[in-house]
């Protein structure tokens, strides 16, 4: 199988937060159309990697590079990354009081459209775009008139992230534990929505703790992040192995090597 072009190329990435080095040299290449899963123990730095790729200002890059579409990703502002097609589905989505979900999402879409030189959508046009996407995650528009994430259940917040992903159609979608807190049906719906969005021009980086999700979304590559480093990469079978054995055998491996 011919490999796609490298969409994201991370090399030797070291990142600190609040003075502590969390990522201690991460290398990762994601090509067009690929789905990568990242697994690893709590606190190993998975969210840190996701956040730093999206440009969260609290994270300091100590060393290393990240090229996205051949550009220096780390040099771009968060909104520039977003407009260039980097999307992060947050582990803990934020609430925005007084702003409807629908207004927020339309503003976001219009920010991307402006970047691409496309005309902005008015509320009516937007509704048409929205309709099909809502269906894909099994929602009606009642969730759209509520303030962004305010009073949403944990699962609803996650579904809302996937709705945004579906509407904003990024090139690189980073999902940080989107499966956590979803019931079985919601998990299947979300996974199906993601599968629908898979295409040769879009890549995924999926952070998860559970093999369960990967039963629905078959990854091309599975990585294990432990103590700030990718300690093992493999195919989908690696996830199954982890499910059976846990992480300890890998950690020991790190110590030996």
């Amino acid at each position, binding site marked *: 199988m011919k490999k796609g072009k490298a969409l994201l190329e991370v090399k030797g990435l070291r990142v600190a937060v609040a003075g502590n080095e969390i990522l201690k040299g991460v290398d990762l290449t994601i090509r067009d159309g690929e789905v990568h899963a990242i697994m690893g123990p709590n606190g190993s730095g998975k969210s840190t990697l996701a956040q730093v790729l999206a440009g969260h200002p*609290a994270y300091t890059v100590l060393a290393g590079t990240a090229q996205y579409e051949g550009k220096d990703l780390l040099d771009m502002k968060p*909104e520039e990354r977003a407009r260039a097609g980097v999307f992060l589905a947050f582990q803990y989505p934020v609430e*925005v009081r*007084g*702003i409807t979900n629908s207004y*927020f999402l339309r503003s976001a879409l219009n920010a991307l459209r402006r970047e691409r030189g496309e005309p902005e959508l008015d509320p009516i046009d937007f509704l048409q775009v929205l309709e099909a996407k809502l269906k894909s995650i099994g929602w009606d528009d009642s969730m759209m008139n509520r303030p962004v994430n305010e009073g949403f259940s944990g699962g609803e917040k996650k579904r809302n992230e996937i709705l945004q992903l579906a509407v904003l159609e990024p090139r690189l979608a980073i999902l940080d534990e989107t499966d956590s807190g979803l019931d079985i049906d919601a998990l299947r719906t979300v996974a199906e929505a993601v599968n629908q969005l898979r295409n040769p021009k879009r890549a995924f980086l999926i952070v998860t703790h559970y093999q369960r999700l990967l039963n629905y979304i078959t990854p091309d590559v599975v990585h294990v992040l432990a103590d700030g480093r990718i300690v093992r990469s493999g195919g989908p079978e690696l996830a199954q192995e982890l499910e059976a054995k846990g992480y300890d055998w890998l950690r020991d491996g790190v110590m030996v090597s």
Partner: protein
Amino acid sequence: MTSIEAHVQQPYKYGFVTDIESEVVPAGLSEDVIRLISGKKGEPEWMLDWRLKAYRNWLKMQEPHWPNVKYGPIDYQAISYYAAPKQQPKLDSLDQVDPKLVATFEKLGIPIEEQKRLTGVAVDAVFDSVSVATTFQAELAKYGVIFCPISQAIREHPDLVQQYIGTVVPYNDNFFAALNSAVFTDGSFVYVPNGVRCPLELSTYFRINASSTGQFERTLIIAEEGSYVSYLEGCSAPMRDENQLHAAVVELVALDRATIKYSTIQNWYPGDEEGRGGIYNFVTKRGKCAGTNSKISWTQVETGSAITWKYPGCILQGDNSIGEFYSVAVTSHRQQADTGTKMIHLGRNTRSTIVSKGISAGRGQNTYRGLVKIMKGAEGARNYSQCDSMLIGDKCGAHTFPYIDVRNSTAIMEHEASTSKIGEDQIFYLRQRGLSAEDAVSMIVNGFCKEVFKELPMEFAVEATRLLGISLEGSVG
């Protein structure tokens, strides 16, 4: 300074000075100065007597220092109490307004020329101590609505003024109200007759221009039985290192079934980053719901002034009357605001609603101070209060002092309060979706203030949100 703070602390855009020859009365306050002001306005004897009575009372009063604000002593003898552009315009002909004044108001977004006027809005433009133009007066007169500078009302409708002035805010109500009663110059007078729904939004724009002066405007609005009026005031002042005093009094009277909606967009010069200069905005505003089923609604968006001290309140005298207070107060740099409301329930089944949003940034200090008083006779009174504070950065402060005094056991009181911080996480979430840092802050602040902005007349909601650097489009409603 974070991007959030930088965005909230935008430079003041209205700080220019109009170069115009003015007649400024020498600094100082005395009975002679009061006689001079009264004389310039061509007032009847009773008005002068009232002023002098207020002045003599004021001399015995102490400047209040209970608000949660700090400032150096004010020298009342160093202020000039009257300043007016020369070549006073004739009030019956707007064409004769000095072009410099026309240009000034145009620059402030308040066109007073016939052909450029805002449709649906009648404007009274006050420059220092005088009104320079009032639009649509003749149009309003067809409905029996009087909308004119208060000095004109004192001359042309003395009975009405005499009947109501000082009935809601007595001349000795407080230190600044007494000072205002002694030296007040222009402000607006509104009278809406029985059963008339005022066909236009009424609006007054106050501009301070001369230095070393104070502005002491007085506004009186009377809504007769079954009438309705919506009134909005705006203001601004040049950037100067000195502090200028603005001590206004506003009185509203709503008779049976009348509704008065009073909105303020306060944008006085707030001073610079170091807290140099800016207006001291010490204001007394009160409405009396005198009639049954009457309603008074205050909406304020306070973004300016070095110091704000104001508590627009309602005396709910008529049975079933309703008082409302919706407020957004923003303090950035070193601004201080101590603002809130007083709801005094006298009548039966009276209801009041208080929604206060305080936003503090930089080293701003924002205090909500509110009093809800339910008197003995106010059977079935209800109050709902909601006070929300938002902090931007960690050098600012938010304070809440809700006072409650309930003397009737049937009263139902509800109070909610919250304090939140705009965090980097919240901003980041929005930026991750492609919004600029500025748009992100705007959206968050806009959402926070939504319940207040939706009370503003449409024509001004945009202006208010723009003042907070906010794009309104679609999000409020």
